[in-house]
């Protein structure tokens, strides 16, 4: 803009720029939460600035944590504001922080800037500005701290009293071109002294007086009366200029000119824009200029505050600014990045092949939220698994919190919260970013007949379980009865899901991974025509893709159908009757086994390995061996790894059973539930048992009947 006034350009000032350190917002948030609450009275604050020290970048008015009053609750070890810091000239300011964004927008900006301008005007009139010149750069800040989203809306105003008509520029050049060589030397020296002395280094306005012998001295503003009497001396008004521009002085000059105008009635003002490089006065970067000023009409009436401008522009527009600090202030985000960091460190230092993405996107289904379920869930989170679903139809009982690590006494009250629900709440308290879901549901069990009126709900549960298993990537069988493991085992075998079983005895445990199901390829079971059973059998295989035997499931180990087995309990004890140390051990092994599967190139089809001295410590895989079964005993403090292959009479995963399920769906399940011996009949186990029993009887009786019925075992 070049509107001319008596032929000379208008003096244009580079606006002050703001810079707010993150620490300022941290402290403001803390004060809001701990001290101020909803009180929105204005808060006195301190800004800091220094002369420009870079030829291409201006300095800013900076706000730091120290700009705010101290928060005594905060365990901060930061130093307080120290005077005499050459890089921090203090400037007084005021903060209006609102409680709502509407309140922020509704603030009367004209009134606020007028009020601050009035303070500056009064300080000029009553002489305070001469004693403590930093009040000339008084500023205003309005803000709204959104402590839910951790974003901060704010707007600075640097009130400058407007000269009307505006000052015009008679001359402006680098200081090195204005001073003679001798003068320049002396001026530099005294400026550096001024900056080196802790008494004056943060005094941003001063007088430069040069005597006829080219010797310079620096005086305080208040000494002007005395200095101006020496008419043969050169006198310049100096100020710390934050601006770097070669053709414009910085903002602080505006109120200095207003002071000079109002108090001393000069017609022309010679000024020095003081700028530095590397801590020393830089007369090439610094500017000396001469401005012509006219005292505005109306300034004679001292009670009338002049107009002021100075709201900071945001990219050229008169709108506020907004900063988001969620990443460094939101506790949930901080927890998430800390957790990620832990795993990344492990990958860097010990396990470069760690598949962090696989783990974080894995969907785990935990059937059972008891002693095993709680521990498995925690271990999964420690490995970076975020998506966990827990299925349990029980409520938390008074004895549970001792052994089931996600529950506390509160969960037991008033009849007890549902375990699935309480477990999810607990997981979220431990790690807010977990995506946990609870399903309150009973698992249908074979050999536990249902009355006809409940049939539909049982079928619904079967369907629901089928869908749950379908929609997850890994399934943990963590219930405390054998029968409850049957249906999940079948469903997992049907879809080749990664399945991990953990079962506890009084002082022993079993942790194993189920082998792949009997379907060896991407065979679409739904699109089949209804073929004869034999054709179905042909398309299914006992062997896996590689031609080897597939590994067994939990039921392959037993040649007994999972009927209601209250009598023969070796495994699957109720949790209260096991040695407490077992569940954490078994749960931990179960999760480590899963991680092993995920990192094995063959995944669910991996062969079962056994720990022995030959592969001790030098396994091919970075995580070590991948066993099929781990059986441990606390009585011996021992543990061994085993391999068991699938049985073609297995009631859960043999090809007959799976194909029956595929053909007849929930009808088949219902039959198994209602008829205790159905599964044994279907798999041919009944026949097997009959002949074995008969053989036994013959032997005892010593008769020769039915020799032909004997079957080689």
């Amino acid at each position, binding site marked *: 803009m070049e509107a001319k006034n008596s032929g000379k350009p208008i003096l244009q*000032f580079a606006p002050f720029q703001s810079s707010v350190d993150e620490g300022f917002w941290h402290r403001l948030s803390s004060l809001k939460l701990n001290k101020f609450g909803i009180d929105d009275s204005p808060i006195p604050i301190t800004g800091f600035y220094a002369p420009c020290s870079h030829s291409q970048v201006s300095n800013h008015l900076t706000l730091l944590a120290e700009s705010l009053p101290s928060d005594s609750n905060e365990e901060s070890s*930061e130093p307080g504001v120290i005077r005499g810091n050459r890089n921090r000239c203090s400037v007084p300011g005021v903060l209006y922080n609102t409680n709502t964004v509407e309140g922020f927008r509704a603030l009367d900006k004209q009134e606020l800037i007028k009020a601050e301008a009035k303070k500056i005007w009064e300080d000029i009139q009553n002489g305070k500005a001469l004693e403590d010149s930093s009040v000339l750069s008084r500023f205003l800040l309005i803000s709204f701290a959104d402590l839910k989203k951790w974003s901060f809306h704010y707007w600075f105003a640097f009130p400058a009293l407007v000269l009307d008509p505006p000052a015009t520029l008679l001359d402006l050049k680098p200081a090195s071109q204005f001073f003679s060589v001798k003068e320049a030397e002396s001026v530099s020296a005294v400026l550096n002294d001024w900056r080196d002395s802790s008494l004056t280094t943060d005094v941003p306005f001063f007088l430069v007086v040069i005597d006829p012998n080219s010797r310079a001295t620096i005086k305080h503003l208040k000494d002007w009366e005395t200095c101006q009497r020496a008419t043969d001396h050169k006198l310049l008004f100096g100020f710390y200029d934050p601006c770097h521009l070669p053709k414009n002085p910085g903002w602080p000059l505006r109120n200095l000119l207003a002071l000079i105008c109002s108090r001393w009635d000069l017609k022309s003002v010679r000024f020095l824009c003081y700028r530095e490089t590397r801590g020393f006065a830089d007369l090439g970067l610094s500017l000396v200029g001469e401005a012509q000023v006219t005292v505005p009409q109306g300034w004679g009436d001292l009670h009338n505050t002049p107009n002021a401008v100075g709201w900071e522009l945001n990219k050229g527009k*008169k709108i506020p600014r*907004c*900063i988001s600090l969620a990443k460094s202030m939101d506790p949930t985000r901080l927890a998430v990045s800390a957790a990620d960091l832990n795993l990344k460190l492990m990958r*860097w230092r010990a396990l470069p092949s760690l598949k962090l993405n696989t783990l974080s996107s894995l969907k785990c289904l935990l059937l059972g939220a008891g002693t095993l379920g709680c521990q498995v869930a925690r271990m999964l989170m420690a490995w970076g698994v975020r998506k966990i679903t827990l299925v349990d139809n029980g409520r938390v009982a008074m004895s549970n919190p001792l052994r089931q690590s996600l529950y506390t006494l509160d969960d037991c009250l008033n009849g007890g919260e549902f375990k699935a629900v309480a477990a999810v709440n607990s997981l979220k308290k431990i790690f807010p970013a977990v995506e946990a879901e609870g399903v309150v549901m009973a698992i249908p069990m074979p050999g536990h007949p249902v009355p006809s009126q409940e049939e539909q709900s049982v079928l619904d549960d079967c369907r629901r379980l089928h869908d749950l298993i379908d929609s997850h990537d890994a399934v943990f069988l963590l219930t405390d009865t054998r029968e409850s493991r049957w249906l999940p085992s079948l469903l997992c075998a049907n879809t080749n899901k990664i399945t991990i079983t953990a079962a506890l005895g009084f002082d022993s445990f079993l942790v194993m991974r189920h082998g792949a199901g009997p379907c060896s390829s991407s065979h679409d079971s739904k699109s089949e025509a209804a073929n004869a059973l034999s054709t179905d059998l042909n398309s299914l295989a006992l062997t896996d893709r590689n031609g080897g035997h597939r590994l067994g499931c939990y039921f392959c180990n037993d040649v007994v159908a999972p009927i209601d087995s209250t009598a023969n309990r070796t495994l699957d004890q109720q949790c209260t009757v096991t040695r407490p140390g077992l569940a954490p051990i078994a749960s931990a092994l179960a999760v480590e086994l899963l991680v092993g599967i995920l990192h094995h190139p063959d995944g669910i089809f991996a062969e079962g390995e056994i720990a022995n001295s030959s592969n001790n410590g030098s396994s091919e895989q970075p995580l070590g061996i991948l066993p099929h079964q781990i059986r441990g005993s606390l009585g011996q403090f021992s543990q061994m790894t085993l391999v068991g292959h699938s049985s073609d009479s297995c009631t859960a995963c043999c090809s007959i059973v799976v194909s029956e399920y595929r053909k007849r769906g929930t009808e088949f399940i219902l039959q198994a539930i209602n008829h205790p011996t159905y599964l044994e009949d279907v798999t041919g186990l009944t026949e097997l048992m009959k002949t074995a029993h008969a053989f036994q009887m013959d032997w005892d009786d010593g008769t020769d009947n039915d020799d032909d019925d004997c079957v080689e075992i």
Partner: protein
Amino acid sequence: MEVLSWDGTLSSRDFQVAARAFAENWKQFNPALPPWTWVPCLKQPSRLSQEQGYLSLEKICLLGSNKEHEQEDVDEEEPEPVDNATLVESAGPQVCYYDFHIAYSDSYRVPVLYFRGYYIDGQPMAWDEIEKDLPACSSKVLLESKWTFITQEEHPHLNRPWYKLHPCGTSEWMKLLFLGDESLAKNGVAVEQYLVSWLSVVGQVVGLRIPFDMLNHHKSCN
């Protein structure tokens, strides 16, 4: 101290001695660069009676990075009287600022470099933005080296997340550094030298250069 029997670490008190010596020497050999300042911190009184603190080098500005930094733009323009005396500037090049702190790690007993980047309005820079400002060879070093790993953790004194070079390999490579240098190995470990040598390695990752003069000066002093 004999290099061979030394484990590469530094006591807390030695760190402070080393820090002050380092700051002095930096000023001497790098008058063109801003100086490192020692920032004392008073921890809770129940802790050690001795003062703790860290070295600080702040507001190093980097011009002309071509980063996009947009702020939210939801409000309407506010009316204000037009003022001819206000210069309306066109937007200059994007400026980023970096702060570097050297603090002491009690658990690893070595110095740790903390750093952060931010825009002038205070908006912190994310790691992928900072990475663009690192010297070209540094990203390679970060990926391949088993000694350097950048993490984001709470600053020990400021309680805010800062980036840092993880200290778990430091004692090992400091020992190697001293063993590999004849003059150092001969004259034993001088505490004053620790930080210069340390920064000559660590600084490469973040682009802080140590002039050779500073390194050689120490060697010749010993």
